[in-house]
């Protein structure tokens, strides 16, 4: 039987039809370009020539950090109203009454969101190529940074989709998704700072346990993972996972979160008749 995911196809058709998709993509690339251009302008006017010749070392992390920030803001919106919008548009009953399995719905909806995320990441590749041409950048580190961004985007889309199955109203689901992302990327480092301060307050010096907790929390953070790839940035002190690169810990942690979100979404849809 020739079978493909019709939900994925339908989502991509509706997503790419109309102006919104192109406006978002264009706005994304334009924003990145403007920020890069501004920084390069400042560097070229004020920095010594040795720095300017290796300006890739400054521009690439800036580009990656700005992208990561944008992904935190826009990735949740890709799938936060995946199910809630179907309910609001009164198309959800027709979908459930068909032969669509929960796996088809989950992978179709999340897959469509990820396709758009990939499109946005690909959209920035020419800019990365430009910063690479300025020198001072290791391609391997760039690839790892993109992996961190991709994994983060995948996780945010999956978590947003889960909220979409749990919350009836699309706007509320989007808000909750955004709050979840903020918690993951901002609250965790804030907690780490708190433990760090607490560790420093002990008379005998910082407690090892607290330091390890700081280390663990920071290893879940995508910004910390990207920072660990920048040459010259000191490693986070900690004994538990000291030998494992931060970006690997972050990718694995987010992989776990993604798997959990997708599993819970599947379970929720599998029991749709209990809450429809």
């Amino acid at each position, binding site marked *: *039987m*020739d*079978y*493909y995911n*019709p*939900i994925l*196809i*339908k989502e991509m*058709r*509706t997503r790419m*039809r*109309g102006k919104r998709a192109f406006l978002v993509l264009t706005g994304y690339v334009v924003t990145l370009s403007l920020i890069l251009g501004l920084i390069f302008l400042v560097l070229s006017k004020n920095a010594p020539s040795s720095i300017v010749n290796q300006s890739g070392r400054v521009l690439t992390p800036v580009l990656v950090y700005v992208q990561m920030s944008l992904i935190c803001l826009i990735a949740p919106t890709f799938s936060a109203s995946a199910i809630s919008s179907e309910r609001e*548009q*009164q*198309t959800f*009953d*027709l*979908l*459930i*009454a*068909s*032969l*669509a399995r929960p796996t*088809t719905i989950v992978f179709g909806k999340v897959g469509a969101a990820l396709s758009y995320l990939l499109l946005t990441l690909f959209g920035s590749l020419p800019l990365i190529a430009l910063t690479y041409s300025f020198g001072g950048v290791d391609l391997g580190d760039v690839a790892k940074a993109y992996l961190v961004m991709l994994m983060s985007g995948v996780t945010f889309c999956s978590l947003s989709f889960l909220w979409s199955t749990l919350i009836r109203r699309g706007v509320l689901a989007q808000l909750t998704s955004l709050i979840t992302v903020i918690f993951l990327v901002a609250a965790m480092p804030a907690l780490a700072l708190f433990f760090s301060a607490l560790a420093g307050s002990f008379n005998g010096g910082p407690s090892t346990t607290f330091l390890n907790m700081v280390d663990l929390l920071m290893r879940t953070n995508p910004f910390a993972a990207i920072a660990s790839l920048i040459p010259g940035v000191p490693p986070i002190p900690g004994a538990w996972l000291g030998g494992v690169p931060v970006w690997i810990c972050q990718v694995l942690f987010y992989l776990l979160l993604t798997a959990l979100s997708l599993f819970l979404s599947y379970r929720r849809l599998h029991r749709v*008749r*209990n809450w*429809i």
Partner: protein
Amino acid sequence: MSDNATSEPMIKLENVIKYYKAFPAVNDISFEIGKGEVFGFIGPNGAGKTTTIKMLATLMLPSEGKLTIGGYDVVTQPYEVRRIIGYMPDSFGVYEDLLAWEYLDYFAALYHLNPTQRKRAIDDVLELTDLTIKRNAQVMSLSRGMKQRLCLAKTLLHDPAVLLLDEPASGLDPHARIEIRELIRELCRMGKTVLVSSHILTELADFCTSIGIIEAGRVLAAGRIDEITEKLAGNVMIEITVKGDTAITLDVLAERPEVKRATCDGRTIHAEYAGQADEIDELLEYLINRGVRVLSFARTEANLEDIFLKVTRGVVA
């Protein structure tokens, strides 16, 4: 269809109850629909029609009781049920950005039709619903009636044996309503088993073979129209048209003990006759002998409206 389906009714509900919190929206209903029947599910708003249909469409679990379609249990075998039903809800959305054929292609793929089957099914249903000309139109550009027909087309893509249509003509203008009625008639001719709900009796009267009357979550009567009519209509209704003063005719009718009730509507008198059906000619003879100038004397069949008014109390859930 399951192995038990050959002798079993196509749709069967046994002691079905559905609670919304503590409130029984559907309260111990049981009825059966045979293969090829067109079952009109009648009741006022809030009676429990949509809840019952949603349970049959596997969208909701009953609190108690059993529902089967084609021998498959809707609770334990939902995918087998979905394979043989086509469901059209009373209020539905469409994907406005898709083209009409894309909309149908999407659902055809959800029903696991391969590309060749999808193309053929789409052509067939577009022709059946008279939407071929709108094949490449964007769904948002279609009128309300066309969207309704498109949804009906979607319902037919996988050639289901059973159709569950919840108020298929709601919100449509009279012309569009007639179009939908004709479509349903055509589906009946194709041998499909159809459960169609409405709170407008005249819509269903033309093509239903059996009916179920529901009020406040309870089925008050269910079965073939002729059986229910005979069972519930009670006395024979007679329509008499006279020349001259109708008051005199009413006085004459009042003399007959077998005439229970007589009302006047212009020149026409509606009388309820409680006597033997084959002795009704004696009443006509009596009227003529008493000098009443009868222009017409006819027995009228109780219609759905009469039955509905007789059976229901006007209670809203």
